[in-house]
């Protein structure tokens, strides 16, 4: 966890410190055995009744309570843009992109939580219904995406992990963060 923005440490870590501590306690014994396996950290979030996650390394910060300025004639999964300390960042309707039902509060312009993620090329704020835990999983625990997903969903969900009785979809940021309209 060396390459995490200090801001995330603040916001994410403070939110989930308790959970982490509890998890750490319960996992303490198991970890000893698994210490050699390659691990990576995920930040979970809820969309409607489902859980998804992005790699912590791709998360820049968490942005709360903001107003989105809408931009005309953008794809429907782009809600608009926000101003984060002078930088304009697009707001992605994650649920619409993946094609599932969310809490549906997106009709208004006030949003509660978004995870600002970045790739080498792009930055975007993913709107989520609820920010969840940070979990550490083994690399080999990632399963291929569900066969029930249709093609367009598979593009945005690259796999899934099964944790504590919950199936968590891994969001394929490479696809989500593809520049929009670049060739036009």
């Amino acid at each position, binding site marked *: 966890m060396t390459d995490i923005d200090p801001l995330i440490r603040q916001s994410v870590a403070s939110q989930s410190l308790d959970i982490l501590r509890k998890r750490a306690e319960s996992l303490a014994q198991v970890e000893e055995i698994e210490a050699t396996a390659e691990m990576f950290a995920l930040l979970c979030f809820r969309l409607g009744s489902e859980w998804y996650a992005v790699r912590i390394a791709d998360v820049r910060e968490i942005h709360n309570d903001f107003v989105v*300025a809408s931009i005309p004639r*953008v794809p429907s999964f782009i809600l608009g*843009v926000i101003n984060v300390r002078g930088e*304009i960042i697009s707001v992605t309707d994650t649920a619409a992109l993946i094609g599932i039902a969310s809490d549906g509060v997106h009709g208004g312009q006030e949003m509660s939580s978004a995870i600002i993620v970045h790739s080498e090329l792009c*930055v975007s704020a993913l709107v989520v219904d609820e920010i969840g835990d940070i979990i550490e999983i083994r690399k080999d625990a990632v399963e291929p995406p569900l066969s029930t997903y249709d093609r367009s969903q598979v593009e945005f969900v690259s796999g899934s992990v099964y944790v504590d009785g919950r199936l968590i979809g891994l969001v394929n940021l490479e696809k989500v963060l593809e520049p929009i309209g670049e*060739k036009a």
Partner: protein
Amino acid sequence: MVEFDRSAFIKKFQEEATEYLQRLNEGVITLEGDPENRALIDQMLRDAHTLKGSARMVGLIEISDVAHRLEDIMVKVREGELRYEPKMSDSFFEALDMIVFLSENAGKDVSGEVDIPALLGRLGTVAGAEAEPAPVATASPEEELQADTETHESAPASVQKPSKKAVHDEEKLQARVQNTIRVRTEQVDKLLNLVSEVVISQIKDEQRVRDLRSLQALSNETQQMWVRVRSLAAIAQAGPRESLDEDIEALDQLLSDQRRQLGVIAKEYADDTSRSASVVADLQERGMSLRMLPVSTVFSTFPRAVRDLAKQFNKDVELEIEGGDTELDKKVLEEINDPLIHIMRNAVDHGIESVADRVAAGKPAKGTIRLAARQEGDHIVIEVTDDGAGIDPDKVRAAAVRKGHISQAEAASMSDREARYLIFDAGFSTSAIITEISGRGVGMDVVREFVVVKLKGSLDVESVPGKGTTLKLTIPLTLAIIRALLVRVSGQLFALPTSSVEETLRVEPSEVIRVEGREVIRRQRRTIPLVRLRDVLGLESIPVEGKKLPMVTVGFSGHRMGFLVDAFAGEQQIVIKTLGSHLAHVDNVAGVTILGAGEIVPILNVPDLMHHARQLTGMRVRHEPVVRTSEVGSKRILICEDSFTTRELERSIFEAAGYEVETAIDGALGLAKLREGLKVNAVVTDVQMPNMTGFELTRAIKGDELLAHIPVIIVTSLEREEEKAEGINAGADAYITKSVFNQDTLIDTVERLIR
């Protein structure tokens, strides 16, 4: 121990080398005309020397060897053993180009592609027959490095030693007066982002000061009211007074304290805010100036470019540069290079006559192109003047008529000036894409479009037949700040650059005339088509108060259009920000700005708006062919593209133009669809795709008897000539690169190929 990361240094070297190479290139040109220029010779010697040393430091031995030979030559020139001859320039350029190539391919083995020993040999010959037998080229890096750092080289001592010494002394001197630092532009931009946030909070502060003042006024009123109430209470009071008196006294004290304190705070706050206002304004101005660079940073590559062009077109041309120290925003500078190169290519190719023609016309054999920059108010004017044949308006008329661009009658009624302007009209020079394939360069319409859309400037032409042509480029100093008109549409604010707004007015509904299902108004003996901005932007209609319709008239490339809005919301200076890295391109929106209150407002792209408005209403500009709706309806396109967003974008472009669209997410699936019998009129494909690339797909289609007739259009970001060549070799009918791609070119190209 941390591993030595050479790649990071190579990047640094490449950045640094660009500067030296640039200067050496310029130097060669100047030296041709002024072979005795001592200062220049010294500087070129220094640059070659530094290049040699830094290349060696990062392990690019081949570059170091080539630079070393250049240094050898310059040493001899400096010592007077060798006189700089113009014929030496070719070897110099060859060497400099080689260094550029080697630097770009740093770390790769390119010995198969280029012959360095041969070049070194040729450079050795230039340095003179008595040149030392290349000891350094073969010396091990360590030895050389050592020799260098100790400032004395073992080789031909008598000549090199003193000059070497001088070089090093001067370098030390330079280091001491070094007063600039290199900063990544990204960092400057981040800083400017923060500065604009400070500006916004300053504006909010100023609002707070006003709020405090009104609070103060409120408190004054309360005080006066209290004084009245207290005196009334004193009179009307009957019964137990003591406790009430105490309360009144306390309240009295509180109120006056409160009032006094509020007064102090309000005053101090107002003072502080006005002090910081001037600091913030200064900060903003200086921040913006960080991005300003002299135009010479771009101009300095042109002498070499013009020399190469002159050679290519077999002309004799000299380039004169004026006003190189005029400063421009870095972003503008970056964008200005390409249009200027195109203009100069045109000047060399079409402007300047052949030597024989010039002599016959009584002109000096050598043609002159003058490149001059100057500041005029908040604009920069750049003029490219050639003393060539000029633009013959009759020839332009004839060409325009021949291409079906205008009718004979229209041509006859045009003034010479209007006729010359035809060179800027879209489609006058044959299409950007098809010509790009044949390598004939880009038409002036594309140059002009670029200047207007990207640089928010204008391009004009003046020409005297037989005397020459002047192209005048007028562009704003910075792209970061513009004046904008704010309008309200469907409850949302939008900004329109004032530069493209012709007028604003309120139209009586009765003035609106309906013609062929379209709405127009008559204004100053012209008919202006009306479009509702909310329709173009795809926004909901909401009820608006007032009977008169607020309208903004915009003009672009000679066309006017009136956009109906819900309300005007003032005019102001705005700072342009991009839509962020994710939204690389959005129709109709050029960027956003943040208003004082922190509200984000989209800035509209006027040419784009007019284009979409035309699509929306089925309006067509004068010369565009009428859409053959019935024909188009039956046409089908196959799009092969692995990127979801690009695929959907292309789909929407074609669907909007009335095509049926089939898609495939890679070449293999696309080919399978075609082989299964899918009938399409054209295939539009990306290059880099999994399973089967666009080139492979093209080859497969063109190699299949049943499919070979289908036109294939490659749309890609690969812009290198070799890649284009590969696309054409594969049999592609058109190759559209990202830089010229927009929906018009795409549709135009496809329609031309299908026809």
